[in-house]
């Protein structure tokens, strides 16, 4: 399966089809049992700096504040200053101060913080696992617009979601997975699962 840079792909399929697993493999977290994965002509583990991954779970330290979390992970990406972080926070629609501990955030806020972490280093490839699942419709539309803007700026986006309608106009291609195999790809063909 080959993906073109600068395009917006949506992964669909019923539960258990293997969408999250595929995303994990591309992110370098799992090894495929057969075959190999290359990103920008590199094995997935070498492309980490140019990749942003947002998992289904927020993966944040509950005991630290939102800003402390972001700052900590930003250092792991070699980002020394706060400016890109502030930018990312604003773009996902959160209040830049973020003083409270993440444990006290709502699900939606945690999700958006996780998204901020995925984009603060301006990655060329963005992997998102159900970014809209706990977010209200207006925020979901905002996030979709944000992703569209990133795609226009040259990033490649690979997204797993059940809410296809939201992305009907923005996505370049839909990939349908079933039982671990790619069964169909192409532009949107009506609203059906």
């Amino acid at each position, binding site marked *: 399966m080959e993906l073109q840079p600068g395009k917006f792909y949506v992964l669909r399929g019923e539960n258990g089809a293997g969408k999250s697993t595929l995303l994990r493999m591309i*992110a370098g977290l799992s090894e495929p049992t057969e075959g190999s994965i290359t990103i920008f002509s590199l094995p997935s583990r070498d492309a980490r700096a140019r*990749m942003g991954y947002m*998992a289904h779970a927020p993966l944040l330290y509950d*005991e630290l504040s939102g800003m402390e979390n972001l700052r900590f992970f930003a250092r*792991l*990406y070699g*980002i020394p200053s706060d400016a890109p972080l502030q930018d990312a926070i604003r773009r996902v629609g959160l209040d830049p101060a973020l003083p409270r501990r993440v444990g006290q955030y709502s699900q939606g806020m945690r999700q958006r913080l996780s998204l901020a972490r995925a984009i603060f280093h301006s990655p060329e490839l963005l992997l998102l696992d159900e970014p809209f699942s706990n977010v209200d419709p207006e925020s979901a539309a905002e996030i979709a617009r944000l992703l569209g803007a990133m795609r226009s700026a040259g990033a490649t986006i690979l997204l797993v979601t059940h809410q296809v309608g939201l992305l009907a106009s923005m996505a370049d291609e839909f990939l349908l997975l079933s039982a671990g195999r790619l069964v169909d790809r192409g532009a949107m063909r009506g609203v059906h699962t």
Partner: protein
Amino acid sequence: MTTPGMSLSIAKLTANNVRKDLRLEWRSRDVLNSMLFFAGLVVIIFSFTVEPTAEESRRIAGGLIWIAFLFSTTMALNQSWARELRNGVLDAYRVAPAPPEAMFLGKCLANFLFVLMLECLMAPLFVIFYNLSAVGPAWQLVIIFLLGTWALVVNGTFFAVMSIRTRSRELMLPLLLLPVSIPAVVSMVTATTLVLSGEASPAAQIKLLAVYCVVYTTACLLLFETVLNAE
């Protein structure tokens, strides 16, 4: 495109991790308090059960102190990755471009400081309860404690990561740690006893501890990424 000014030096990343761990420890002080209380209890219980004279105590205190430290260290190490596990954060680490060795070193240093703190509490209690006084040069004890603690912590942190992918996690850590640590523990105990009783110089034991620390720190650093990504 990468952000300008990107730096992924191991030293800075390690410091980053240590800071994060210390901050987390400080925020959840209940864990800290329980550990300190537990360490104190261990010393007191030992003192109840074994009541030697001053001469005898110098001979056996070395062994008792290190058994008590081993207990407490194992308990502390079991906690070491607990927060990462609870929040599921390890995946976020693995996806980041930072070399995992930095995370490991950071965790080791944080654990090392934590265990040293426990030892600083327990050692004076031992001195009091056993009326200990060192016949040999006491400054050597400092070296022995530092090397010995690092030997336990570096392997313990490594095996704690391994235990994450096993059933009965809390049991797996001591099970893996203790056999590998036997030569180090033997050296620690012998060295401590030699210094306390003033019989001979613990130079050979200290050398062995140093060798052990170098060998295993290297092994841990080289194999950490492999074990972290074993899926």
